[in-house]
């Protein structure tokens, strides 16, 4: 189990570093056109290690730029969902009663709405392709499960005597939430957040694949796969390269999250 976690961390580290360092690794940037090499397969000549697309843009440069966007959206959206989810879930679980019922029914209602629909509405309301709109749309659905998990954990913590001891010590309710509840749900939260990132990346890719996400000349892994799919028969590398990248990224995140879950939250813990 630990070997897998370590392996996944190494792969993720390498991918992140390569994505960030790409501008210095390759002479090409993702917008540049190479008229001499249009739709060439992977080759060393001209430093097109992963080939080029129909417009002669370097696929390595494009993929790395897409990876940066995917990682940024995945991590930021996970962060947003952690912040909202933890605050919402801990408050509902700790206060209980009517407040809890109200807050959790709200979560249930949002859950019940078809989220693709919400996202499409949000994406069309905002300027198409704005990363902020994407983050907002993805964050709006990402925190729901987090809130449920944190609430569940808080309910069981609430019954522990150290919380009563804190109340008796005169600690205020916000301080109890911050000092006693949050640190004790952190394990489950970190584990679940790591599992959320790949879901969010996948979701973003799905939106981009539909054309609702990142717009040209920027790209995300989803939009690259979309373009690649159209060229599948004549230029298969245009599909294979971003698809492989996405798969490796998602598997690594999932392995890491799974490993963290069994270490931090215990096997069979209330983390899906």
């Amino acid at each position: 189990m630990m070997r897998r976690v370590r392996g996944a961390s190494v792969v993720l580290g390498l991918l992140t570093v390569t994505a960030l360092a790409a501008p210095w690794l390759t002479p090409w940037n993702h917008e540049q056109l190479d008229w001499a090499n249009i739709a060439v397969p992977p080759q060393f000549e001209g430093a097109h290690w992963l080939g080029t697309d129909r417009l002669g843009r370097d696929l390595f440069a494009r993929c790395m730029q897409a990876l940066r966007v995917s990682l940024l959206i995945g991590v930021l959206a996970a962060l947003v969902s952690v912040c909202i989810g933890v605050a919402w879930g801990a408050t509902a679980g700790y206060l209980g009663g009517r407040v809890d019922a109200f807050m959790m029914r709200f979560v249930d209602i949002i859950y019940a709405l078809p989220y693709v629909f919400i996202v499409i509405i949000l994406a069309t309301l905002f300027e198409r392709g704005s990363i902020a709109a994407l983050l907002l749309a993805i964050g709006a659905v990402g925190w729901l499960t987090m809130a449920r998990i944190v609430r569940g954990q808080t309910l069981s913590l609430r019954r522990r005597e150290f919380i009563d001891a804190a109340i008796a010590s005169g600690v205020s309710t916000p301080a109890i939430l911050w000092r006693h509840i949050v640190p004790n749900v952190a394990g489950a939260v970190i584990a679940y957040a790591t599992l959320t990132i790949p879901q969010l990346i996948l979701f973003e890719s799905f939106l981009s694949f539909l054309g609702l996400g990142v717009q040209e000349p920027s790209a995300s892994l989803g939009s690259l796969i979309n373009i690649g799919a159209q060229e599948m028969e004549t230029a298969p590398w245009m599909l294979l390269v971003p698809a492989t990248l996405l798969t490796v990224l998602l598997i690594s995140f999932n392995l890491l999250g799974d490993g963290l879950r069994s270490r931090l939250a215990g096997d069979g813990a209330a983390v899906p």
Partner: protein
Amino acid sequence: MSADALLTVENLGVGYGDQPAVRAVSFDIARGRCLGVIGESGAGKSQAFLALLGLLPAQARVSGSARFDGHELLGGGGRSLRGRRIAMIFQDPMTALTPHLRVGDQIAETLVAHRGVTWTAARTRAAELLAQVRVGDVERRLRQYPHELSGGMRQRVMIAGALACDPDLLIADEPTTALDVSVQAQLLALLRQIVAERQMSMAVVTHDMGVIAALADDVVVMREGCVVERGCVDTILSTPRHEYTRALLAATPRLGTVGSLAAASAPPAGGELPLAAREVVVKHRLRGGWRPMSLTAVDGASLDVCAGEAVGLVGESGCGKSSLARALLRLAPVDGGRIVWLGRDVQTLDAGELRPLRSGVQIVFQDPLASLDPAMTVAAIVAEPLRALRPDLEAGARRSLVLRALEDVGLDAGYAARRGRELSGGQCQRVALARAMIVEPKLLVCDEAVSALDVSIQAQVLELLQGFKRRGTGIVFVSHNLAVVRQLCERVLVMYLGRIVESGTADAVLGTPRHPYTRLLLDAVPRLDPATARARLASFALRGDPPSAVERPTGCAFRSRCPHAVDACAERVPSLDTVENSHQVACLRWRELPE
């Protein structure tokens, strides 16, 4: 080694990695006799018996030999005999019973598995067995699930299951530890009777000298994996030779030794604390079901405490003693009556006005580990009340106060950076005490604060409480252990189903009890002299489990279990009557009962 030994254990060792849990332990159990194994937590006593039955986890290394009636138990041999010729009952009958199986099927299952009888025959036998362990209304019980039974009833079911195959040896691992004293006495009497009737051998593993006195013929005293003393029960209890056995006996609180920690005279001259609890009612709302129900945990109880005085709050589990104690700190909702601190009704205080209550009244809970935040260091835990109640304090001053509070409870500065899980139960409870005492409260509420601790640790914590008392802190001491209460408290309140049934000085209530319930509770306290212990068990009169507060009997709540109940008891709720001085009793017939 006697010739008729049923079980002979020689040089038994159990180890995990390079940590030995049991080291070269030898003992034997004669046919028809009961061996008591006593020791504190970590002594390796349970490990030794689990090893005999092959119930240890795979990573345990077991060495030595154990011969049971000619069969070698170690190395897999124990597995074929367990359940059939050797049966075991455990401390917690809830986790030892399968939740989704009906009681009858659970017992029948053993018979079908080991005896190969039909299910019908096995069910008939299960009914007989339940009758033998004195379970009433057998037909209904057979169809119930474990969660529908009380703790005592579950343990009876466990015993019935253990007896199913007529074992030659019954191993009881802390059989009564999780139970109330009254239920404990019933079960000890039952175990004695069954073992005598069937001429079985028994091994009882316990930390409680009272259980040893009641059941054992021979005793083995264990400490840190070794046997330190062995002998017959009378010798061990009357003239122990090893210093550890002597220390254990000395630390065991007993009713006979009158208030060794309590002040000799009644209320000390410290004056009353600014606390007054009057006719307090606490209700707990029950969730689930079609309509919301509520359970009246405390039903009109009043309480005062003097400075430097310990007031004992005693009763069986579910009697409302903890609810009342927690209501004093506004940790439980008050649905009637008033709790006044410094002239203000605590229910009406808003968040900003709570500070005098919080710094004046503190609490220590039963479970030492659960009352410490696992994410915080000892220093942060102890500093918490200071952060909240004295925010003006600088970090340096706060730290020196924390270190002094830790020192007060016998922990040096080296503990400050540790976390709860790195400490023993006794150390955790000291940290909880340091946290409570750091704001120098006038009143300390102890909710079963020593119940989870080994006797020697318990004695040390009681000594600390005594020290706080001497410095003028009032203590409300909630406990089910009358012997401990006798040791520490000047005054005692006895509760039954939410009402105070008897109150007064410890001498009066525990010395000359007037309420039949108090008398029966006192009768149930395990004695350390084997002859007395056995005689008491034989005549023990308190039957049944405490009724639930949801279905309280009309009139006097105790009448359903009271040996002196008459028709009039069903009609009127008795109020507290003064016997003499401060001694009060709530019983319609107290004048008629023999003293």
